[in-house]
């Protein structure tokens, strides 16, 4: 393989891995508080549509990302109210959130189908010759550069702060957290708000930085891949980086092969991320190493 092709794959891996990483980090925090959010796909769609719409209206992609983050958090708060305050079934509420996202994003995005926007500008590392391989490898938008610090920050937040200790306690045993003087419901609200912010940003990165278009259902199941990545990452933000790069790499490879005119059906290639996810989950299941928070998916109904 020639260096340009490899550079293309790596750059593609980083670009498509970024939105996966943001989404996975958000879901990790939510699941650490004991809440599975199957509606991540819907959150990403809302983020993608609202971010694109705001960018098209105002002309500032940064504002678009901010709007997407806010919209993602707002939608996740609806979910939080239903599962935390009303103690509803998390799986059913998550799927409802997915439907909500599919519908709302279609409504928001409709007037902006085919709109042209100037996406997040690429910030090249200074001192590289333009057009060279170095420039191709190291020229990304700001969200890409922020992804790694966000992962580290999330790790620090979960494992090195008092808030993170409380978060993990709530995920393992809400009753114990309650007994220790924490308010499990408040922690879960905070965790889901954080997850919504990151989910919205993940969606916005797809529409405002990656494709520069809005299309109905454009996230194409990435929300579910991110949920699987949480299992792959063993609920640890640092492993999530590796997972996002692996899956981004599968997509980057696919795009490069297509661009190079490889004689493989695009439909077969598009299956790779889903089958790869399934294969990884099988491998993890085989090793029987579960690091899932003990109270994940359970409804906390208070203590006597």
């Amino acid at each position: 393989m020639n260096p340009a092709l490899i550079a293309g794959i790596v750059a593609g891996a980083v670009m498509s891995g970024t939105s996966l990483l943001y989404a996975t980090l958000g879901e990790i925090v939510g699941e650490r508080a004991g809440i599975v959010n199957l509606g991540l796909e819907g959150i990403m769609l809302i983020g993608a549509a609202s971010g694109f719409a705001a960018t098209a209206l105002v002309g500032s992609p940064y504002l678009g990302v901010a709007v997407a983050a806010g919209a993602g958090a707002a939608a996740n708060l609806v979910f939080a109210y239903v599962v935390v305050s009303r103690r509803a079934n998390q799986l059913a509420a998550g799927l409802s959130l997915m439907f909500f996202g599919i519908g709302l994003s279609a409504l928001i995005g409709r007037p902006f189908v085919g709109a042209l926007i100037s996406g997040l500008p690429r910030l090249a590392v200074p001192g590289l010759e333009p057009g060279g391989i170095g420039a191709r490898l190291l020229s990304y938008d700001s969200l890409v550069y922020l992804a790694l610090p966000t992962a580290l920050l999330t790790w620090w937040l979960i494992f090195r702060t008092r808030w993170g200790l409380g978060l993990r306690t709530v995920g393992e045993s809400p009753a114990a957290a309650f007994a220790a003087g924490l308010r499990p419901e408040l922690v879960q609200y905070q965790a889901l708000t954080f997850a919504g912010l990151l989910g919205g940003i993940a969606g916005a990165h797809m529409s405002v930085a990656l494709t520069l278009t809005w299309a109905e259902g454009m996230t194409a199941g990435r929300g579910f891949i991110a949920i699987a990545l949480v299992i792959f990452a063993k609920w640890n933000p640092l492993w999530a980086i590796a997972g996002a790069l692996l899956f981004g790499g599968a997509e980057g490879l696919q795009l490069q092969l297509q661009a190079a005119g490889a004689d493989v059906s695009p439909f077969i290639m598009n299956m790779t991320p889903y089958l790869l996810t399934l294969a990884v989950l099988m491998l993890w299941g085989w090793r029987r190493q579960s690091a899932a928070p003990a109270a994940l998916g359970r409804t906390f109904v208070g203590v006597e």
Partner: protein
Amino acid sequence: MRRDGAILSNCAARAKTFALVAAIALGVFATLLVAAGKDPLKAYADTLLYVFGNAYGFSELLVRMIPLLLTAVAAALPARIGLINVGAEGQLYMGAWLATAGALAFSDQPAFVLLPLLTVCGFIGGGLWALIPGVLRALRLVNETISTLLLNYVAPLIVSYFIFGPWRSPESSSYPQSPAFVEAARLPTFFHSRVHLGLVYAFAALILYSLAMTRTRFGLDMRAIGGNPEAARRLGIPIFRFILVVMFIAGGVAGLAGMAEVAAIQGRLVSEVSPGYGFIGFLVSWLAGTTASGIVIMSFLFALISSVGDILQITQGVPFAVVNVLMAVILFIVLGRQPVGSTAR
């Protein structure tokens, strides 16, 4: 049928709650549409006029109910042993795919051969697809919720691969699709409408499901597993085998929905066999508490809601997908209405 009886006994109270939920949901959805510059009241009125104004409109509602009924059974059956099958969408596509394979390969056969063949193909296509997450779950490798969700995205790609490749009809240029089915491979329709044999299949599936759960040893064992898997295992119920059989049957029923969509409605394999019937079917089953009678009522309501989506798309240029918001709002209200402190279903 204890659960069904309970539903009937407090029917009046339920009707009142239902009216309230519907009013709130329609109100929220209307507010959203007004914000988007659309006319929700006209859409609601148009929908009622279209669906209940004449026999054809109502028959179209029945047509839409068929895949919802079948995919709801596909979600309800595994739910009875504690499995969450969110993969009816993919199973539907694979049923459509294998049925198409059968229809194209045996196009010279008469209808009395082709119709049973298509039915079996649809069932097996969906069943085998559901067997993948079933095996992974039975071996305790992968949780079936996530695997069924992921496979939903693979099945339509397989369908697209075939209609863009080996099965591409020479007549289709811009919108690739398979060659049209021969007349003998089309499901019979009733009353000069598009209501097709799938409706019979759907009600047969519901009746069999209901009878199997209440009247057979199989259903008793399933309820034992659903109630307490550990106790069931100690009783000697082969849980491993039950997971496989139940997933296969569930997938098969969803596959029938796919078979019916291509063999009755489309008459050929297309890239979009379903606008998300499998997902809606899951929610129908969930809202119905997995009872047969509840599934019929909920399918009817969700078919009606889908009609709102059609009307909005045709008369006001709103994407069909927007109707998902209305469904989601209803679900959120129902989910949020459950008394705090009660165990979630």
